[in-house]
């Protein structure tokens, strides 16, 4: 059996760990540059706040209910996340961190899982001060279902276990909307409804060959997992990454080409770093820059760049991105830009073209040195045309102190 453990309203709850006065108040956490709301706690949800609404639309409700607003404090969330993952890891021999607030745990051979689930919740609450939920299942897809049930059904007390009992599994799946199943997107949901598949159970029991023919192997595996079979292994991404995107909004608007180029190249650096970490090479790079969606006349510029060869070399890519941006540039009040790497190949199995210039290995060495110097999210070395990020850094007006990562910000305790 596996388990998926996730934190309840993680960002919002993290803000209350060192602020006892906020624990019963509505809390909202805003996205980069305080653009829109990304996390709400239970209290805020009950008052009618909604995720992904821009700040100015929420303002009246915020004033009315004295809700507490925070900018994203990634330093705090990252460090609390690490604590939670470390606590969970002590319960099992193998675990896989799935996101900042979710972790898979391998409970093969364990007994009395429900009791263990409640022990985990108690341990994380006591040691890290955060609430969690636990979904047990015989595979990852069923764990995800169980975790949603643990979230929605109050009497589970945060622990749901879909065990080998077929009747229990079917009873849950028949009431579970197929669109909420892990890996089933909105397009797939629409197509499935045309086949009369609305519940997770209907997907589980549908003809596997037909599913595979229409939706591909991933959805077929999803369907099999809903039936209790194990298809997605530990440490295996459900979909191989086909693109890597880095997109940010700027701290203040940009009009001119040159700062736009340098900022976009700093996003490219991040994307290329991820690419190398995945052992992949890129051939096409999509770039775009856009004005604010909330300011009437929305404008954007974009371009797709074809690199001469598949590469993971930041210097080569930066040269082409710089040119590509120049080609499509028009003067607007830009607030956001995006870099998207596509046509990715594994660098392990890549067969170079006979006509390609031979790789001297210099680039590989240089990139390894750069990645080592920048390991752990540091910015020790960067291209001369990328800014060291101060002027256009994120706007985080409501950021809480870095309680766990900065000496000056540690909690002050009354003695």
């Amino acid at each position, binding site marked *: 059996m596996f388990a998926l453990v996730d934190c309840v309203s993680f960002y919002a709850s993290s803000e209350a760990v060192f602020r*006892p*006065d906020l*624990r019963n108040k509505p809390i909202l956490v805003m996205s980069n540059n305080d653009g829109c709301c990304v996390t709400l706690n239970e209290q805020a949800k009950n008052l009618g706040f909604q995720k992904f609404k821009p700040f100015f639309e929420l303002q009246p409700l915020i004033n009315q209910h004295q809700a507490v607003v925070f900018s994203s404090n990634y*330093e705090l969330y990252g460090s609390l996340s690490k604590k939670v993952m470390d606590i969970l890891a002590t319960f099992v021999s193998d675990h896989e961190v799935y996101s900042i607030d979710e972790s898979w745990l391998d409970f093969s051979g364990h007994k009395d899982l429900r009791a263990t689930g409640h022990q985990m919740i108690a341990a994380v609450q006591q*040691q*890290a001060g955060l609430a969690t939920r636990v979904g047990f299942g015989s595979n990852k897809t069923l764990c995800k279902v169980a975790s949603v049930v643990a979230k929605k059904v109050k009497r589970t007390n945060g622990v749901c276990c879909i065990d080998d009992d077929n009747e229990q599994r079917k009873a849950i799946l028949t009431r579970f909307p197929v669109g909420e199943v892990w890996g089933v997107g909105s397009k797939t949901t629409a197509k499935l409804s045309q086949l009369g598949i609305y519940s997770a159970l209907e997907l589980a029991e549908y003809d596997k060959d037909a599913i595979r023919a229409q939706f591909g192997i991933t959805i077929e595996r999803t369907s099999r997992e809903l039936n209790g079979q194990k298809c997605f292994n530990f440490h295996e991404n459900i979909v191989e990454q086909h693109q890597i995107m880095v997109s940010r909004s700027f701290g203040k608007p940009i009009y001119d080409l040159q700062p736009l180029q340098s900022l976009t190249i700093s996003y490219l650096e991040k994307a290329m770093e991820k690419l190398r970490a995945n052992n992949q090479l890129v051939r096409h790079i999509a770039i775009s820059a856009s004005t604010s969606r909330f300011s009437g006349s929305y404008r954007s510029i974009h371009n797709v760049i074809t690199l001469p060869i598949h590469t993971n070399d930041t210097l080569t890519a930066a040269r082409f991105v710089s040119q590509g941006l120049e080609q499509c540039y028009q003067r607007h009040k830009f607030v956001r830009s995006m870099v998207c790497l596509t046509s990715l190949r594994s660098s392990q199995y890549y067969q170079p073209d006979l006509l390609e210039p031979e790789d001297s290995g210099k680039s590989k060495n240089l990139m390894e040195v750069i990645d080592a110097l920048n390991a752990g999210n540091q910015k020790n070395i960067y291209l001369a045309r990328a800014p060291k990020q101060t002027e256009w850094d994120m706007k985080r007006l409501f950021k809480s102190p870095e309680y766990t*990562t900065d000496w000056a910000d540690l909690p002050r305790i*009354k*003695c």
Partner: protein
Amino acid sequence: MIPLIPDPLKLPLLPEPIHAGFPSPAADYLHEKLSLTNLLVTHPSATFLAWAEGDSMELAGIFDGDLLIVDRSLTPRQNDIVIASVDCQKEFTCKVFDLKNQVLRASSLYEYPDISCTEGVLIEGVVAHSVRMHRPANYAKS
């Protein structure tokens, strides 16, 4: 980031070995390191650091500006120094825990009222160690 583990502060027991001449007979023993973090932080995932403010704990050896090492995984015992949240106040308070009488007490030459452990009082962790800053701690906002 203030890493609790792995520890950046590794104090070698011996100075650098001499680079010329007869090899240092101590060279083989040099990997023994003393780590303050390992000594003071027993449960890294349950530990947080905080600054002490005020004079109510001076007789217990905690002065204004000292560093508190708070372990949330320990079960408080009689006369442990604990961190508590009181009636949803913004800041935590640090006091001596009288388990038998369910009271939080100051430890000071000055008068401080006792706090009885009623519903609004939640013990959040045990101050396992504290670091006395005989000179003020030197940190600048990074």
